[in-house]
């Protein structure tokens, strides 16, 4: 997540999914960096939150919780997609 944020420019969209959803949780060191990243939109995949027992109210404010359809829409909207595995 740290290095992903370092490469995210203004206008970038970051989607957290699978184990990446742990980066969307409030009260962590990463949460502060997300708040500080200006011009970057953040999304987290709802089904992966549920699978891991992470309630929606634990997600950092400003991160949009999305479903699979929105995942596809985001991939289509953004002209370059990098999987940060």
């Amino acid at each position: 997540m740290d290095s992903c944020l370092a490469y995210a420019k203004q206008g970038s969209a970051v989607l957290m999914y699978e184990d990446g959803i742990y980066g969307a949780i409030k009260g962590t060191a990463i949460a502060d960096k997300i708040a500080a990243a200006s011009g970057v939109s953040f999304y987290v995949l709802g089904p992966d939150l549920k699978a891991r027992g992470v309630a929606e109210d634990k997600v950092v404010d400003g991160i949009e919780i999305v479903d699979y359809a929105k995942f596809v829409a985001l991939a289509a909207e953004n002209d370059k997609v990098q999987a940060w595995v």
Partner: protein
Amino acid sequence: MSEQIKKFMYLNRRAPYGTIYAWESLEVVLIGAAFDQDVSLAFLDDGVYQLVKGQDTAEVDMKNFSPTYQALGDYDVTKLFVEKESLEERGLTLDDLMPLTYEDEDDDWAEKDSIKVVSRAELADIMEEQDVMFSF
């Protein structure tokens, strides 16, 4: 065959579902439980996420294996050490974890907690006492 009982510890350091390690560890623990050894589990780093309650995998089309941890007590696997620092680093407390219990046959089958939160230093001491460690 030697009758000597050895101390086996399974180290769980990864989150569930993203990789197969957590589930594989649980499978090996259940298989190993048949061998009457002194077994304990340690959950540290992202491994603490394995015990978070309220897991619901219906929408990701994967098996939710978290209820299986509740069965460990019936297999005499009753020592689950969870590292305090790993919980704190992830904003978690004991209340965020599934309540796991076992019935103590030496104490009139009293229901007792299987999870024990220990500090990193305490866990290091417990690790030192082990004969065999499996890392997942």
